[in-house]
């Protein structure tokens, strides 16, 4: 599949089939994540893969933005000790790094026929408690994964003309 088609066709999926994702596919998705760009190559990320139904159910309880019953979750976290190496910009750079890793993962998932949805509406305090996440690690995003019941229609995008400024703003 052409890369632009993959990028344009990926959707946020919130309804999943009751079908497990093979472990090797999940590892491929995670591998795509670690090859994201990273400011100063700090790689401030930590990824927690969750596939157990009981744990997914518990995470759903504390995540108002998690819809459907996904087969797996990836919790993307910032390792604050590593992020500090980036100086005053370390925190915001770490967020960008993790975001780029997330996009890599979601595109990889889509190329494998797996739906995904990025979720920020979850309770960080409760999630850290549930998953024994240490104090210096901050969960910032959950990606839900599963085979989609259907691929949603694309939402409207602001046009290139509206958002692209050539040579100068405006």
């Amino acid at each position, binding site marked *: 599949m052409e890369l632009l088609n993959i990028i344009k066709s990926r959707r946020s999926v919130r309804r999943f089939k009751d079908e497990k994702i093979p472990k090797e596919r999940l590892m491929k998705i995670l591998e795509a994540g670690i090859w994201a760009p990273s400011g100063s190559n700090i790689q401030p990320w930590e990824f927690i893969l969750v596939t157990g139904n009981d744990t997914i*159910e*518990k995470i759903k*309880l*504390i995540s*108002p*933005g998690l819809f459907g019953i996904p087969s797996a979750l990836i919790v993307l976290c910032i390792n604050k000790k590593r992020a500090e190496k980036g100086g005053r910009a370390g925190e915001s750079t770490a967020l960008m790094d993790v975001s780029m890793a997330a996009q890599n993962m979601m595109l990889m998932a889509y190329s494998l026929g797996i739906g995904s949805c990025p979720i920020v*509406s*979850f*309770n960080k305090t409760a999630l850290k408690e549930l998953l024994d996440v240490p104090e210096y690690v901050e969960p910032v995003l959950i990606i839900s994964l599963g085979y989609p019941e259907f691929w949603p229609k694309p939402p409207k995008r602001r046009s290139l003309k509206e958002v692209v400024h050539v040579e100068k703003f405006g």
Partner: protein
Amino acid sequence: MKSSDDILSDDHFKLLAFLITSARGCVDEPPLYGPLRLADAAARLIEIMGKEGKVVPEILELQKLIEDKKDLVMYDEEGFIEFLDELSRKLAEIIKKS
């Protein structure tokens, strides 16, 4: 008293967890996510009422409307607000004829 294992599958507890975590989430989230969480909670409450035999078809229609249209919040703000108006109107119809 229920055991802690039982409580995780208890529908009322699930709603309780949703309400508490939504309350915290709404502090930081976009303003329209407050109405979204309330509408979502309403749908979850109807689900519980259904299991307890407390719903009429008109109430199930409210639930379907919420499930069908709650995602509007992400791409059509005006449409989402119109959906909340529609939901309110349908609720009033149920109240009026009861």
